[in-house]
């Protein structure tokens, strides 16, 4: 009996925190939270806009049952509104304009009529209010002692196809509420952040004589040319320190993976297979994963950059054409139907390299371009379903997906 118990204990320990294990039914007992608005300066439209943004963010952190009623109160009122008496938490905030016209937000969290947390925020322009809303949600998540949702405060860069051979590169927040067209005109695709600080990015210009990798410094707006290749030129990944790029180039009409040193401008060919090798991603320091057609169909492989050893990573599915990795996990895109002439379904799957467990993350439509957040807490992806293009977020630990639809155009690729 003792042995059985200790075995069970070891098993539980071994699988605790495995993101491939899906929580099917959780006891529906999330604490409740209500939001009280104490703003005075702004008009009702904006007040409601900010409120909606907060509700959406609090939903995405997946810790609360969020009350969706917009109610107003004085910021210093000693007690919460009578309707919110039964709520576990109340978030009360006040927006006000300072002398410079900047948007200021003061907020506090009230539990049992006691202030348990408070903080102030400020942003120069009113139209970037959503970044305050994201920051509030981030801080509440920290206050609750949950694993960080730092990805919420990061910026997303994506390319949008607006017509044949026409695209835009856009910088947005994770929910697409804020969108700033950074690069307009021409045919530019595959944007990729050049560093962790997100103040520069790479992209592929397809309207040059040869596909060319360019870099934009967002402070100086200087565009520099990095390297070009006949046929194909994509920056697939940037190392954490920003020093090494993983490129897909086709120097002789042959798509292969190259490493590129940003300081020395030297590149090195890493794969030599005669078919297709693309989509390389760093997995640790000396290892990459990539998509290769070496089995006759696209699948996920890994290569140790030092020992040159190549290994097949996924043994499920007949067409796995995109991937992203974080720690021991790989998320990949698999074609679920193989019909040449009708709508096909592509789903994202998560596989653990330790346990080989696989979890399907999406159910309908064309789900592609998975990208892990830096901390591995969430996966960002593109969903195209019924002529609607959206960016989706998968919260792995909470088993929840959120979709943020794009108003027009089609998302071609993105990074965050």
């Amino acid at each position, binding site marked *: 009996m003792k042995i059985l118990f200790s075995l069970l204990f070891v098993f539980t320990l071994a699988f605790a925190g495995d993101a491939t294990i899906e929580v099917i039914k959780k006891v529906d007992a999330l604490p409740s939270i209500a939001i009280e608005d104490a703003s005075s300066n702004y008009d009702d439209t904006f007040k409601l806009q900010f409120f909606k943004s907060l509700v959406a963010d609090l939903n995405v952190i997946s810790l609360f049952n969020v009350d969706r009623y917009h109610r107003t109160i004085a910021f210093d009122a000693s007690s919460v509104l009578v309707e919110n008496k039964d709520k576990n938490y109340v978030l009360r905030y006040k927006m006000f304009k300072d002398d410079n016209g900047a948007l200021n937000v003061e907020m506090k969290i009230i539990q049992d009529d006691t202030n348990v947390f408070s903080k102030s925020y400020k942003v120069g322009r009113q139209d970037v209010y959503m970044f305050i809303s994201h920051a509030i949600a981030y801080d509440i998540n920290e206050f609750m002692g949950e694993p960080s949702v730092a990805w919420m405060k990061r910026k997303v860069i994506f390319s949008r196809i607006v017509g044949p051979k026409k695209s835009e590169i856009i910088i947005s927040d994770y*929910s697409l*509420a804020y969108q700033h*067209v950074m690069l307009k005109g021409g045919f530019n695709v595959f944007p990729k952040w050049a560093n962790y600080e997100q103040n520069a990015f790479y992209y592929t210009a397809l309207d040059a004589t040869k596909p060319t990798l360019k870099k934009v410094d967002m402070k100086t707006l200087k565009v520099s040319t990095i390297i070009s290749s006949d046929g194909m030129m994509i920056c697939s990944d940037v190392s954490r320190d920003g020093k090494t790029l993983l490129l897909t180039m086709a120097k002789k009409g042959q798509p292969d993976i190259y490493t590129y040193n940003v300081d020395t401008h030297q590149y090195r060919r890493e794969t030599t297979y005669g078919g297709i090798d693309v989509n390389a991603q760093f997995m640790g320091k000396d290892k990459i994963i990539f998509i290769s057609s070496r089995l006759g169909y696209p699948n996920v492989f890994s290569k140790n950059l030092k020992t040159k050893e190549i290994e097949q990573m996924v043994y499920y599915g007949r067409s796995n054409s*995109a991937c992203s990795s974080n720690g021991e996990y790989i998320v990949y895109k698999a074609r679920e139907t193989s019909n040449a002439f009708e709508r096909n379904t592509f789903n994202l799957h998560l596989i653990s390299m330790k346990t080989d467990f696989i979890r399907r993350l999406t159910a309908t439509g064309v789900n592609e371009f998975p990208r892990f957040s830096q901390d591995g807490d969430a996966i960002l992806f593109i969903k195209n379903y019924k002529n609607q293009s959206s960016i989706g977020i998968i919260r792995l630990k909470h088993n929840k997906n959120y979709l943020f639809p794009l108003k027009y155009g089609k998302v071609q690729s993105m990074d965050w």
Partner: protein
Amino acid sequence: MKSIVLSSVVVALLVFSGCSTNKPAVDTKKTTETPAPQEVEAVEIETVSPEDSMVDSSSNASDTVGQMSMSDIESKLSSVYFAFDKYNLNADMQEKVAKAAELGKSGASQYNVKLEGNCDEWGSDEYNFALGLKRADTVKKALVAEGIDASRISMVSYGESNPVCTAQTKECYAKNRRVDFKLLP
């Protein structure tokens, strides 16, 4: 036997009569009307119009002299089509490439050619771009085999982002799996 049945019925009745419940009284008094608070949608997206700095990368390359004859020749170069997820040429398409090579040696001999590989809409990932490139490369190899100098040929893949047809039909998908010829001065 009868007495057992009877007594069990009596016992059962006794047990169930003990289970009767008194429903709690419900307060039917009307509560005072308060203005209904507004409920909002779960997730709503508002697009913000840009006003910050921006890079404009549209090229102003002007058309050169001889543009007419170039587009004339281009119109004679018909696209080469491919099967789903494939980059090999079938006999029909081989013929098209041979005709293009013929033109490349005669009327279009002073121009270079750019082969543009394209795919259907199934995926915007790098693999799809690579597939478009392999298609262009197949056409390039066939042109070289027909006697065109490889240095006159350049290639680019547009993946799924340059469709000629956007309807969701099998005819449309087939039209997009193609390689186009573009002449360069």
